[in-house]
């Protein structure tokens, strides 16, 4: 994996990002920096705020939601951009790949038109040039019979092909940052790997930064160099993927890693059971006081119940009053085989 280059400005610098609507606060002050060409994984259960985080970075929050804080990207603060100014960046310097490619493509337009019109929107390319570039993109995505695909409608091609079209669309204008929100969850298991490989290669060739949002830890392990773990709207642990996965410091991260199925802990006779985190993700409107994870945490103390732990500074950070010290538990092994 290429190490991020330091001479380019950061792809993304997020400070104190808060996402809320009139009654709920879903993302409660998160900070992170994604260097140019860096790859970061954002992990968390549903409801942890990871998708709203991504949508707020794109300025695509659903109606009624609002983002506060600072999001520096390409020399501007995205939070303060008007819809018009922001829209001229979307697809050009920052793009996103969504979860469900079928519902995300316009059902009544040909695929070639959808992709080439993105190119024409952001560059001075003529219709012919844009179409030629689209064809080239389709080839890079290893899409079969790209000429015919240009004239196809989204419902006429397979799910894996659709998602590759979405990736082509997101990469069409060589953005500095691409956000992928669960890009393979809606796909058949058999094509997930292929789509990820194509995304991985394309991102690498272009040197663009990647933010991968998923609850699938092996994907993070395979594709990212840093990982941030979100719980109830906060980042609870962050650091280089290899270190976080080998020796998690937050009990939630450890729980997540323990509950990943690997071949040896799926014993078919039922004698060994897959570990799971007790309890449920608390609903946003009734978060517990103190550390949001304490009701589900085995190490919780009175302090955890009263005060919110802040994220440590430095390379390996956790937000925990009783972090797991390295070597204390060596059994943690993620299924990092993808």
């Amino acid at each position: 994996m290429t190490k991020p280059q330091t001479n380019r400005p950061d792809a993304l610098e997020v400070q104190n990002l808060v996402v809320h609507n009139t009654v709920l606060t879903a993302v409660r002050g998160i900070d992170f920096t994604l260097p140019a060409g860096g790859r970061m994984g954002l992990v968390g259960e549903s409801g942890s705020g990871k998708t709203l985080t991504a949508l707020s970075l794109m300025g695509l929050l659903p109606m009624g939601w609002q983002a506060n804080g600072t999001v520096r990207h390409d020399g501007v603060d995205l939070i303060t951009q008007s819809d018009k100014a922001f829209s001229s960046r979307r697809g050009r310097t920052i793009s996103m790949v969504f979860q469900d490619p079928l519902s995300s493509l316009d059902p009544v337009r040909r695929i070639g038109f959808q992709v080439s019109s993105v190119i024409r929107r952001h560059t001075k390319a003529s219709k012919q040039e844009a179409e030629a570039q689209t064809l080239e993109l389709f080839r890079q995505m290893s899409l079969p019979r790209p000429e015919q695909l240009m004239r196809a409608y989204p419902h006429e091609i397979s799910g894996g092909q659709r998602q590759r079209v979405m990736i082509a669309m997101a990469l069409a204008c060589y953005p500095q940052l691409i956000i992928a929100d669960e890009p393979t969850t809606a796909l058949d298991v058999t094509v997930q790997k292929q789509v990820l490989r194509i995304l991985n290669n394309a991102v690498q060739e272009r040197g663009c930064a990647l933010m991968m949002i998923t609850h699938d830890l092996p994907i993070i392990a395979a594709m990212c160099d840093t990982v941030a773990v979100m719980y109830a709207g906060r980042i609870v642990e962050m650091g280089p993927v290899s270190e976080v996965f080998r020796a998690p410091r937050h009990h939630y991260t450890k729980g997540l890693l323990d509950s990943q199925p690997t071949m040896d802990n799926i014993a078919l006779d039922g004698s060994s059971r897959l570990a799971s985190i007790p309890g449920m993700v608390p609903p946003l409107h009734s978060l517990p006081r103190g550390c949001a994870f304490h009701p589900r945490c085995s190490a919780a103390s009175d302090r955890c119940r009263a005060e919110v732990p802040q994220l440590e500074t430095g390379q390996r950070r956790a937000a925990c009053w009783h972090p797991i010290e390295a070597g204390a538990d060596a059994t943690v092994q993620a299924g990092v085989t993808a």
Partner: protein
Amino acid sequence: MAIYVLRKLVFFLGAIFIASVAIFLLIRGAGGNVAAVVLGKGATPEAINALAHSYGLDRPLFVQYFDWIGNMLSGDLGRSFRTNERVSDLVTARLSVSIPLALSGLILGLIIAIPVGTYAARNVGTPSGAILALISQVGVAVPVFWAGILLSLLFGVRLGWLPTGGWTDWSVSPWGAVRSLVLPVLSLGLIMAAVLIRYVRSAVLDVMNQDYLRTARAVGMTRTEALLKVGLRNASLPLVTIVGLQIAELIGGTVIIETVFSLPGLSRMMLANVAAREVIVVQSTVMLIIIFVIGVNLLVDLLYGILDPRVRSSR
């Protein structure tokens, strides 16, 4: 696509056939003795029979049906019993009133409903959205003839700007014809708009929640641009269907509005002939209207096939 068109055509022809049988049986079966009604009380049986014979109404029903339908197929819509005028002449004379009225009413309705409905969808949950929803809810409850009466009270009686009724023929004064159509079209269009706004609003609302609209913004369109370029095209699919279904409603409204403003249109002719028991005239005119409605629905289906690639390839 060819199979899709063929299926629709077969349905079109089948529908017209079944509708013709239904109309024929309804008018002849439930109509009682036409000749007796025409001659009124006190007519002798001999006179009734003679009249029935001269109208050809004493033949077996199925002979009469095939006679009628055969003539229609060859373009002969029949003649009025009493005046011996050709039904086709009667109808075409009235179309110069009814068609401009119905068509402009529909167009006015759409011109109002599409922007207002889109605006209402974008403002769901705001005071202006709520007010629009209420206005269209009230509008749906207003009978079209009452709208006509109120408009003619206001613009015709109080302000005196426009005629409260009556008709100046195109050949006499095109401007006069337009003037006599303004209030009828306005009444019809406003009521159509009230109905259509609700459909436009829900279609746009539905589209606004679709992922592809978010994608459109994710690749660089502004909110408004995405709604207009991607949203409206997709929202037009359900709307085309709705407009097709509203055609029957539109004809009903036209019938009433022609009476409100005493316009010599198709429906006034129908009403007169219904009263006079001119069964052939009524039968043929009703059939023409039905062919028109079914034909519009056929066009709507074909248009849908053109607009939606999913229909083209799956059906």
